[in-house]
């Protein structure tokens, strides 16, 4: 039995399903990256695992327990940081630590918070508000908050996609370092295959939506610690990347949706001359028909 197990999950918001037939199993200590197009339903998937949304069908199990509601056993790093702007870095993390460990003494909590602030190298910014921090720093606070809760599993929802390329690379290294220290189970959502290959043990592509589903997984067999510079020349890396990109583009091309729409032709049809005119003057007006037609258009979604 896997640590995190998703069985036949589907999710729809009223209309057609956003996600369907999602099956995923993640082992303890594994780092799994889910790569998908924007709008495919990646955030929906992570919200399901977090318990913020309920699946329309199927079941989610974490450590043999059904996931029914959000809880601190699943630490989430949101795409948009989700820090409370009226609290300082320290207070933001403390709020989480207090919520998870209500029985701890104040000193113990403080020490715990300090430890995680140090882990993400933010000790100098300890008493700043999120508004005074750069995007990368905010995301690091968010990571520290999630880790400080000491969750069973860490969910990263496109944690780095809002950052510039350089900050992104630095934070990738940091995530990689923290993961190898902590050995947490991680599910990361990303739109960047390179990022996934660099960080994860396993990469699972999410096909293009609507009705997105998970493809078969690619195992990354590049030994750790991975080096950012040499990884680009690794033949395994190149091949993996090509396969993933091909798979995803392929999934996109298959999707053609036919849209049917009604076309109302303007009322300008000429008089039907086959109908004999009667000479008594009963029908003097021309005969016109308002015709309704349908057209089917092929659209690439």
């Amino acid at each position: 039995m896997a640590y995190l197990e998703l069985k036949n999950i589907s999710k729809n918001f009223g209309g057609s399903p956003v996600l369907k037939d999602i099956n995923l199993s993640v082992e303890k200590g594994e780092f799994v990256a889910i790569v998908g197009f924007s709008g495919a339903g990646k955030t929906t998937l992570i919200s399901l695992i977090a318990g913020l949304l309920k699946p329309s069908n199927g079941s989610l199990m974490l450590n043999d327990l059904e996931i029914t509601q959000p809880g601190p056993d699943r630490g989430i790093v949101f795409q948009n940081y989700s820090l409370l702007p009226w609290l300082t870095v320290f207070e933001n993390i403390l709020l989480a630590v207090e919520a998870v460990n209500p029985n701890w003494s104040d000193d113990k909590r403080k020490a715990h918070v300090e430890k995680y602030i140090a882990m993400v190298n933010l000790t100098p910014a300890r008493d700043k508000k999120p508004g005074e921090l750069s995007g990368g720093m905010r995301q690091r606070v968010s990571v520290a908050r999630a880790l400080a809760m000491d969750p069973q599993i860490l969910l990263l929802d496109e944690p780095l996609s809002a950052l510039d390329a350089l900050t992104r690379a630095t934070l990738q290294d940091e995530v990689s370092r923290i993961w190898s220290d902590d050995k947490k189970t991680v599910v990361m959502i990303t739109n960047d295959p390179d990022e996934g290959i660099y960080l994860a043990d396993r990469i699972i592509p999410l096909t293009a939506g609507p009705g997105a589903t998970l493809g078969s997984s690619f195992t990354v067999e590049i030994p750790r610690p991975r080096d950012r510079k040499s990884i680009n020349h690794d033949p395994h890396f190149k091949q993996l990347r090509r396969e993933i990109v091909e798979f995803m583009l392929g999934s996109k091309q298959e999707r053609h949706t036919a849209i049917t729409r009604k076309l109302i032709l303007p009322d300008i049809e000429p008089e039907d001359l086959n109908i004999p005119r009667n000479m008594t003057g009963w029908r003097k007006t021309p005969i016109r028909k308002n015709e309704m037609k349908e057209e089917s258009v092929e659209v690439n979604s």
Partner: protein
Amino acid sequence: MKSFKFDWFVLPLVGVAAVLILWQISCATWAKDLPTPAKTWETSKPYIVEPFAKRGEMDQGFLRFTWYSLQLVAKGYLLALLIGTPIGFFLGLSKTFTKIFDPIIQVLRPVSPLAWLPLGLVLFMGAGKDASELGALFTIAICSMWPTVLNTAVGVRAIPQDYLNVAKVLKLSRTKTLFKVLIPASLPYMFTGFRLSLGIAWLVIVAAEMLTGRPGVGGFLWQEYNSLIYEHIILCIVTIGVVGFILDRLMSVVEQKFKTA
């Protein structure tokens, strides 16, 4: 520095001068009963020079009158905040609550203080001596409550889902969610409401004092109108305006402090 002083000191003075000139011209032409600026100053002087003098119940320095009025406003305003903020929170949090009470609020909101005051007096008729004060408080509270109610409701509704998600993931208790997430997140909106409410409370005081005849800026204004001392009406108008302006500035300073990123 020079242009700063020019902008903030000289230009407003030009405006004041223009109004004074217009006033003087009006006195001389079409408004013969209107006291001239000079005469107004002359008659108002004892009240301004000795702002805290007390010569009789309705004959006191203008700051003393202002002080009475401010006390009454403060009480009524606090009452409005204490009642209005929780109502606003319920409106913001519960759709059912909104559907039940929103129509009533929308109907009661545009009712003038002049209409509420008699009702307030009737309600507290049994209170004897305090009836006029309680009636005035009731009027101030009920009239100035609405901006607080509506802005708090909007503020609570506008809390980003992200913050609520944080509360959910951390499984914060209800009270903790309220004090750590809901209230801080809606504070900027709430303060906008508080500021508008204070403005209305100050507007209402004048009407309330006029009708009840309590000592205060409004009461003094009405009494001086009845005793045909029109200069004091102008003194009162200026006082009311300046005090209202100062209150609004103070509130906006407080409001700015609570504007979070």
